[in-house]
């Protein structure tokens, strides 16, 4: 039997992971690490979805978490392709320097 008192801890973990990811997006300058922090935020949303689905006795939370995983995979592919292109152009990998669309 799953203890319902676990639910606040799971939501707390989701909030913690999300805010840590958001903090990483704020303070890190390497775009690869910024993407990892975005992955962290998406995973935090998944934890909340699965926990709610478990405690509301429904599998819809798992379906939405599945969709989030697919979107995260697509986002990472496009983002890392952009980072390799930035690197190929000879630019330094620093998000503070990459504020312009054109060179």
């Amino acid at each position: 039997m799953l203890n319902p008192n676990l639910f606040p801890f799971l939501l707390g973990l989701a909030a913690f992971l999300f805010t840590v990811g958001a903090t990483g997006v704020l303070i890190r300058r390497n775009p690869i690490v910024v993407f990892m922090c975005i992955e962290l935020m998406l995973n935090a949303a998944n934890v909340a979805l699965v926990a709610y689905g478990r405690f509301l006795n429904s599998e819809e939370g798992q379906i939405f978490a599945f969709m989030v995983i697919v979107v995260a995979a697509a986002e990472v592919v496009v983002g890392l392709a952009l980072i390799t292109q930035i690197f190929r152009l000879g630019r330094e990998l620093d998000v503070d320097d990459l504020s312009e669309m054109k060179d």
Partner: protein
Amino acid sequence: MTVLFAVVIALAAVSSLGVVLSRQTIYSALSLVVTVAMLAVLFLLLNAQFLFAVQLIIYAGAVMVLFVFIVALLSPDAEDRPRLDARAVIGVTGVVLVTVLVFVAARNGITYSTNGFHAVGVGSSSNPYHTFSFPPDAVNAAGNVQTVAGQLFTNYLLPFEITSMLLLVAAIGAVYLTRRARS
């Protein structure tokens, strides 16, 4: 069971701090692998076996290999330790504030009632906002993969098909972005 939950939650939290605070990019990537694996174990404990497999195969398998590959390809320099400037102060305050607020709200703002294996009443007792379409233990009786797939291919068929379009667009976009410029 509770001890396992505590260990997994603690490891996920600590390794997520490692993602943000590591100076070397590769250490961030490896910390994220640990976080993702711990969340997979958490999904298994929460009776989401299908998501456990998907999380391990897609995140720990595909996405993290892609990250490590890109880190090895670009070999970015070690970053200075993040300074304690205004952004860091806002971030740390946000982490503490939001986590405590969500925890307290979930602990005190929601009433729980248990009925057998599942907690079937999450929500204010005077105003339950959720009606249950699944009898308790229906998910366990039919098997997790079967019930998830049954929903995915009936009620959520359109979003499922749209995700396949999204993956196609992402693949085409990645190929277009990484092509060699014609000179």
